[in-house]
């Protein structure tokens, strides 16, 4: 196994990076706040990619009634919507400045609602480009569609379809809405996938059900067990989704938290998925390790088990962020499923969380809602984080040379960052500098890219040395032939009768 325990050497290396990184950088490499995993799965502490710009409590935001256990967070443009679940209201804020968030209004009830006109534990909110607001009004068993002034438009209620189990309540907890007004919703106790409604409120089926798998050991156990034992066994049910996020392309990122610890560890359960319209998982998993957040977890200090992702958000550059509710960490992954960095932790300091509930992004900034602290934490990228974005976005836009230069700057700040090496290598590969690219890939064990570079390098080498190669081959063939010929002639002379007679 490549997995190793974290080592003290990593700290020493991180300290070395700090010494190299110079004075203009405010990143704290020694704090252990931000880290990555290297090829071997060893923790490598890294400069901070994100810094908490501010933590905004109810008082900071200028609320008369403090937030109580808010669960939903949605960012639309520069507006921030928070589902104040405990107070049954939706709050709207506006990003005023780099480091200030101002209160705009509170939506306490629904005008023109035929069913009471009040929210009951709203857990998620979603705002669309065509000016509608969707609210998962959980304990009213409905998803509400409102206009931006809080006027009732319509509601999506429990499907009457036979495929939906009629014995359970419809408890929509998280929602996402596509550009056509179709609603995808995570409902509690529903394990068939995401509940999908057409824009006219008609239930149109489940999306992204997790396939039921069982292996032959389960089969043998079931065969050996008595009937009573079999009934006591856990039935093979697919898992429920925890949260979802619709990205800019209309694909849905969905997370699962109800998963077996060993299944998460060995990668047989995918805790994050990216679903297309057909409900198939199209998430790219090219990283060395599965997308499970922390690779190692102990059991101590009240924290145990693997990372459980309570929310996810994806940026336009296909970098996505997973929010771990167990240890209050944020994990960033790139479009290839390689971990960029992880930061955060449990605690009361700025940038640490007690019960993180939701994450969303505004440009490159991140907002995290803590439902125990009743506060929003605003993160902005540091210079280091910005350089990583630059490098990735420049590569995506086809500016390979610039991307290589940005990765070089990233490497100047963090020598232990595998992705910087591979990034430089990929930029060199695109510039057809194969031999240099090979060096970078070799250092960080990127076999696919190395093979690509090496193939081209080998071709070039053969083309350059074709004369020598031919000469060698010809010599190898001709020289033994000639020698054999000479030997034969000599032998025949020696054997010849004229000479033998004497």
């Amino acid at each position: 196994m490549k997995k190793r325990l974290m080592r003290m050497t990593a700290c020493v290396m991180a300290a070395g990076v700090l010494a190299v990184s110079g004075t203009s950088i405010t990143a704290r490499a020694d704090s252990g706040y931000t880290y990555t995993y290297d090829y071997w799965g060893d923790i490598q502490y890294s400069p901070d990619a994100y810094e908490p710009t501010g933590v905004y409590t109810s008082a900071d935001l200028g609320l008369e009634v403090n937030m109580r256990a808010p669960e939903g967070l949605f960012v639309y443009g520069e507006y921030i919507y928070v589902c104040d679940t405990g107070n049954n209201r939706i709050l709207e804020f506006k990003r005023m400045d780099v480091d200030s968030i101002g209160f705009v209004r509170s939506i306490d009830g629904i005008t023109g609602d035929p069913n009471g006109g009040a929210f009951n534990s709203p857990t998620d909110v979603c705002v669309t480009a065509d000016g509608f607001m969707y609210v998962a009004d959980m304990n009213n068993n409905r998803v509400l569609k409102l206009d931006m002034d809080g006027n009732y438009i319509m509601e999506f209620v429990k499907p009457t379809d036979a495929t939906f189990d009629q014995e359970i309540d419809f408890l929509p907890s998280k929602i996402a809405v596509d550009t056509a007004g179709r609603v995808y919703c995570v409902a509690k106790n529903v394990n068939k996938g995401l509940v999908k409604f057409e824009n006219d409120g008609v239930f149109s089926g489940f999306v992204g059900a997790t396939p039921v798998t069982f292996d032959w050991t389960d089969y043998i156990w079931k065969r050996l067990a008595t009937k009573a034992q079999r009934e006591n066994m856990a039935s093979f049910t697919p898992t429920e989704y925890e949260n979802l996020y619709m990205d800019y392309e209309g694909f849905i990122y969905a997370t699962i938290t109800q998963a077996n610890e060993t299944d998460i560890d060995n990668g047989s359960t995918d805790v994050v998925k990216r679903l297309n319209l057909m409900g198939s998982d199209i998430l790219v998993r090219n990283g060395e390790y599965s997308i499970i957040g922390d690779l190692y977890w102990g059991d101590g200090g009240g924290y145990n088990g693997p990372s459980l992702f309570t929310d996810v958000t994806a940026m336009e550059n296909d970098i996505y962020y997973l929010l771990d509710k167990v240890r209050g960490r944020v994990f960033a992954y790139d479009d290839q499923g390689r971990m960029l960095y992880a930061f955060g932790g449990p605690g009361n300091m700025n940038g640490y969380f007690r019960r993180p509930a939701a994450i969303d992004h505004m440009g490159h900034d991140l907002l995290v809602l803590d439902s125990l602290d009743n506060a929003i934490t605003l993160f902005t990228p540091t210079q280091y984080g910005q350089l990583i974005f630059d490098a990735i976005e420049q590569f995506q836009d086809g500016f390979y040379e610039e991307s290589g230069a940005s990765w070089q700057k990233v490497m100047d700040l963090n020598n232990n960052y595998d992705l910087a090496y591979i990034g430089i290598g990929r930029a060199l590969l695109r510039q057809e500098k194969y031999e240099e690219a090979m060096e970078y890939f070799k250092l960080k064990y990127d076999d696919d890219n190395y093979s690509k570079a090496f193939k081209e390098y080998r071709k070039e080498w053969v083309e350059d040395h074709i004369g020598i190669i031919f000469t060698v081959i010809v010599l190898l063939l001709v020289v033994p032939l000639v020698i054999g010929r000479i030997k034969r002639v000599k032998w025949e002379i020696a054997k010849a009768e004229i000479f033998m007679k004497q």
Partner: protein
Amino acid sequence: MIASLKKNQKFAEYKRSLRFAFYCLTHPLDGFWDLTHEKRGSIAAANTILILTLLARLMRLQFTGFLFLRVYWPEVNILLQVGSVVFVLAIWCLGNWGLTTLFDGKGRLSQIYMATCYGMLPYPLIQFPLIILSNVVTADEAEFYSVLSGFSLLWAAVLIVVAMAQIHEYKMSKNLLFIVFTAFAMLVIVFILLLFFSMISQGVAYFISLVREMLFRI
């Protein structure tokens, strides 16, 4: 003069016995019979092959292309790498000898060692070129490497099995049976060694703590 001639003769004999290993590669039945019965092999050649095998094993760690072998150097222990061959070879020879002498095996301990070492020749013979090959192929052509690498082990295994049959003058069925028994014998040896070492270490620990206690009281 005579001494140097004798030395030369010895060296020639050594060369001949080493060259005989290549004959055994392609003619195992004939070769391994002659190895002991015609005294064509030598312990010196066997040692040479063993050393080559160990070298191949160590050198592939360092020089194999990273597409095929990635070494986590902080956890590499050269002694363990060497031991994984030498120790297994030692208990294989001991176990095999211990069993076969009881059941009409004609081979002596030194002959078992010699034949096994001769049988290991395909490993260095293929692995050394493979180290070079691994540096000039891409991931798409990885199959060549893995097939050849597997083949080197398979060939060595076949040679060793045949060698055992020939030096003990066993039929193949009896030979295979005794190879399985040897595997069990090896397990027993490992178990006894473990038992022995843990007993010794506990005994030593007892006396150390006794002395410590005494020093503490005085």
